[in-house]
């Protein structure tokens, strides 16, 4: 969670309001997935409720939320996922080499799948929940903290 909190605080000027429950399946959400390779390859997913995505995008771009386009909201959401993934990986494997793939919007149900090797957490952004999950195919060392926490 600290990686998520740091990204939201530094770049998006909002304070995480603690851990939260994942939004219900019927909630309108945006799901992003990206893969990373290198010393510790794997996959990262982010799922965020749409009101939170739009609010965060508006803050990031300095725009009025009402005038934000869908394209702008998507671009910022992709960048948010990119930054959180990078922050998480840098915490887990500070000496490892990794390369992030391009984040992609995926079908919402893709963000809900879990696996035995997955680390996942959900935070409250102030406008709704944001969930991140990471699966690493090979760990070179034990994480110092819960991976996506």
């Amino acid at each position, binding site marked *: 969670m600290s990686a998520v909190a*740091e990204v939201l605080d530094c770049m998006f000027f909002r304070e995480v309001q603690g851990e939260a429950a994942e939004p219900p399946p019927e909630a309108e959400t945006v799901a992003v997935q990206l893969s990373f390779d290198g010393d510790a390859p794997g996959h990262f997913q982010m799922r965020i409720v749409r009101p939170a995505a739009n609010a965060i995008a508006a803050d*990031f*771009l300095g725009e009025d939320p009402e005038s934000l386009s869908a394209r702008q909201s998507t671009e*910022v959401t992709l*960048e948010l996922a990119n930054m959180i993934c*990078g922050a998480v990986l840098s915490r887990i494997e500070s*000496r490892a080499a990794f390369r992030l793939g*391009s984040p992609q919007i995926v079908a919402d149900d893709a963000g809900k799948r879990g696996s035995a090797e997955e680390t996942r957490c959900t935070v409250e952004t102030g406008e709704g929940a944001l969930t991140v999950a990471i699966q690493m195919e090979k760990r070179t060392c034990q994480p110092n903290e819960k991976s996506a926490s």
Partner: protein
Amino acid sequence: MAYRVLIADDSPAMRSFVRRVIELSGFELSACFEAGDGAEALAVLNKEWVDAILTDINMPGVDGEELLRRLAADESLRGIPAIVISTDATENRIARLLALGAKGYITKPFRPETLRAEPERTLGVPCD
């Protein structure tokens, strides 16, 4: 003194953010160019002089590392300081990019004041 800056990042949102933060921070800009990847950055540099380059690393096509290599290989461009802005904060990556000629490194996420401080340091701008 006002500076001419080139921002290279494949994310339009990030380019907009960097530009806005730099402008709001009081760092004096006389021109701000944007590029979506290293190839576009080199095309801009072929036409325009800039005082500093702020570049992402993970870009399609000509990425940030390759951009640094091409800048170093070009006598007319190697003197332009390039500052990397990247999500990758691993020691190996930072060391490699500095060895390729990057003059500064900003890790995402960053505080807005960092986005001003690093170019100022690189360009030798006196502090306020």
